[in-house]
């Protein structure tokens, strides 16, 4: 394809059609492999391996480094993180928000050459929602689908049980389209070993904890990769992973720790790419168990005690964006204007005194050992420093991710814990999932309870469209700002190091590498 003009508009469309033809030929056994090999191969160093290759078995956000490159939903996100049609060409929602008519993209194909049809959409819903699949994320989207009515190969209507303003935004990450014919032929187990999707990359091979090998899918409807084979190497150790770019072993290194950026930047031929992410760092306050923290004034004062700007500069090396609200401002509703809690230790202290805060009791602060989130331990140290400065005593415990998670996500919230270091990644701009889990009473990560807020959260998605919901979300976030259930800190930036000959614009706001637009000079 490199010889074809890659102009937007007509030229691009023509290029796509040409590509589809070639891939089809390859699929039929006509020698086309030589073509694929002509494209340069790409090596990407990643911090952690995925658990499952089956899109209905996604246990955590890390899986998307695979899913986002191999599978697709009807809608998804473009290079700027904006909602865009993917396997669908268009959608027409009904006025009541209970039905969505999708027109599938002509020319969309699975990696085995089968076309993506409305039948696949129906099957994908059935499989994802079936109780025997035990899809751990069914509750987010697919469980609310009442039916998928197949009209013809390229048209289907999805009807919902309840209105859900988050439906479109969630289609990308929570409803992947799987090939019915292939899956039924090989069965679930074989599919999980050799998955076939429709994304820009096809799965080739995998060795647990070692590598995942993908191949650029020349038959893709539009996002045809400019690279051939992609070797995703799993290099958990931060330093070793960063060294991969210095030694030239990797073309792209993901999740470069902020502290390693400066030494890498000094080297020739290495570029550092940074984009904002939805990975949010904050400190939940246990307002339920500790009467000392029950008053909103106290929680607001704690927010004022932290010099976020100083911590971003020193602890995060500037690779984070301080936030006024506990989310990235690109999250729907997070663009509401609020008066930020500026850094004001004196006022914070005064507020605590007038709220009757008991300074003699130390706050038990649970931190997370390093390994998962960059600078997690240093962040806790920094926050402790600022709290101590206004006279709030702290008692810090730092646990490994598993032990930390058992407490943070525990069914019963430990009354001994007053503050926690927490990170939360939204998979897309829809805030409903995060709020229900992290703020609503009884949510798996919620250390806060307020009936008034709960009532708001419960009707958060009960709107016909995102536009209709927007003012309500802003109101909700303004309320949360006032209530201050957490100490708001910052969102992390995704940092990539890329080697010689690579040009790439990483998709912002996702915490995984979307690789189809990587260009590598031969």
């Amino acid at each position: 394809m490199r010889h074809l003009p890659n102009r937007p508009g007509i030229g691009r469309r023509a290029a796509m059609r040409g590509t589809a033809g070639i891939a089809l030929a390859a699929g039929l056994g006509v020698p086309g492999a030589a073509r694929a090999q002509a494209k340069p191969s790409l090596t990407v160093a990643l911090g952690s391996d995925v658990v499952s290759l089956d899109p209905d078995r996604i246990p955590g956000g890390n899986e998307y480094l695979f899913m986002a490159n191999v599978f697709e939903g009807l809608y998804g996100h473009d290079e700027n993180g904006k909602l865009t049609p993917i396997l669908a060409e268009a959608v027409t929602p009904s006025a009541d928000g209970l039905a969505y008519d999708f027109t599938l993209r002509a020319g969309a194909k699975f990696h085995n050459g089968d076309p993506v049809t409305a039948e696949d959409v129906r099957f994908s819903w059935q499989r994802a929602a079936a109780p025997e699949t035990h899809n751990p994320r069914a509750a987010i989207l697919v469980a609310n689908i009442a039916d998928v009515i197949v009209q013809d190969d390229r048209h289907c209507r999805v009807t919902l049980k309840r209105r859900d303003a988050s439906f479109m935004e969630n289609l990308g990450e929570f409803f992947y389209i799987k090939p019915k014919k292939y899956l039924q032929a090989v069965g679930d187990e074989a599919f999980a070993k050799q998955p076939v999707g429709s994304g820009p990359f096809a799965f080739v091979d995998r060795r647990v904890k070692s590598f995942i090998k993908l191949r650029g899918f020349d038959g893709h409807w539009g996002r045809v990769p400019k690279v051939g084979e992609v070797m995703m190497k799993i290099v958990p150790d931060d330093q070793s992973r960063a060294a991969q770019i210095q030694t030239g072993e990797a073309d792209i290194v993901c999740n470069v720790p902020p502290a390693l950026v400066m030494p890498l930047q000094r080297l020739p031929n290495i570029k550092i790419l940074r984009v904002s992410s939805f990975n949010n760092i904050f400190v939940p306050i246990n307002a339920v168990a500790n009467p000392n923290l029950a008053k909103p004034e106290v929680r607001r004062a704690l927010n004022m005690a932290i010099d976020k700007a100083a911590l971003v500069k020193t602890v995060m090396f500037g690779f984070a964006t301080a936030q006024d609200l506990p989310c990235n401002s690109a999250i729907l509703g997070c663009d509401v204007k609020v008066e930020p809690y500026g850094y004001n230790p004196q006022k914070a202290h005064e507020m605590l005194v007038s709220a009757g805060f008991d300074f003699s009791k130390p706050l038990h602060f649970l931190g997370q050992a390093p390994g998962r989130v960059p600078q997690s331990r240093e962040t806790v140290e920094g926050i402790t420093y600022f709290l101590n400065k206004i006279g709030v005593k702290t008692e810090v415990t730092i646990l490994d991710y598993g032990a930390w998670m058992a407490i943070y996500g525990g069914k019963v919230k430990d009354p001994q814990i007053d503050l926690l270091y927490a990170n939360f990644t939204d998979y897309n701009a829809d805030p409903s999932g995060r709020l229900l889990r992290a703020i609503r009473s009884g949510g798996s990560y919620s250390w806060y309870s307020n009936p008034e807020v709960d009532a708001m959260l419960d009707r958060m998605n009960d709107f016909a469209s995102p536009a209709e919901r927007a003012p309500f979300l802003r109101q909700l976030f303004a309320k949360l700002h006032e209530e201050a259930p957490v100490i708001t800190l910052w969102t992390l930036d995704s940092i990539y190091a890329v080697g010689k000959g690579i040009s790439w614009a990483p998709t912002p706001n996702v915490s995984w590498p979307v690789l189809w637009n990587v260009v590598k000079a031969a």
Partner: protein
Amino acid sequence: MPPARLPILAIAVCVLLIVAALLGGVLAPYAADEADFGAVMVPPYGLEGGTVAHLLGTDQLGRDMLSRLIAGTRISMLTAGAAVLVAGTIGVLLGLIAGYLGGLVDAAIMRLVDAFLALPFILMALALVAALGTGVGNIILVMILTNWARYARLVRSEVLSIKRRDFVLLARVAGVRPLTIAMRHVLPNAQTSILVLAVLDVGRAIILESSLSFLGLGIQPPDMSWGLILAQGRTYMGIAWWLTVWPGLAIVLAVVCFNTVGERLRVKFDPRGAL
């Protein structure tokens, strides 16, 4: 090996470290966790940008490295010392019991010792930390659990060899109670080997602690140890070498000195090298 002289220098360093561990804060110019955002990553004195105020430089939060190292000495030595002391006591007691009583008790204890020795110690340490959580107390406990078995095995074999010696047999014939024999006759004869093993173990414990900290599962702030300082500084290796070099040197120096003292003791008392 050649006959050993007393390693004066090594002993002096060991004593110095123990003194630093005991006095701790008194010697340090600053509080170890006193952050100063105006003086972040100041290089050591003598380098461009370094000041006398921070002889060894400051870290990512502007804390004084010298003060942190001294505070680290305390925890590193405390964990190592406590671990060796308690593990030694438990191991010695069990070894005495096993060796002296023999029979089923011996078999039971020794199979347990074998099982503990067959587990790679760092795996056991990791699992225990994951189970118990971090913190100084738990790290000490982990080191005790991973270390006691060696003492038990050593003491048992010592007991077995001493038991057959004439003076013990005589005491037995004379009707001295087994416990008294063990305490009065057997233990003193085994004490040099125990001492040697213990001194050598201090070095091992320091390395184990730093390895755990390196994996992110050792000592955690606000506590401080050399291993933790090193592990935290490792992230900044490319921009501030002093964050890793000082604690690294401290570890190497301490381990070399304790090992040297231990080795010399071993050569002196146990030239066969049975340890």
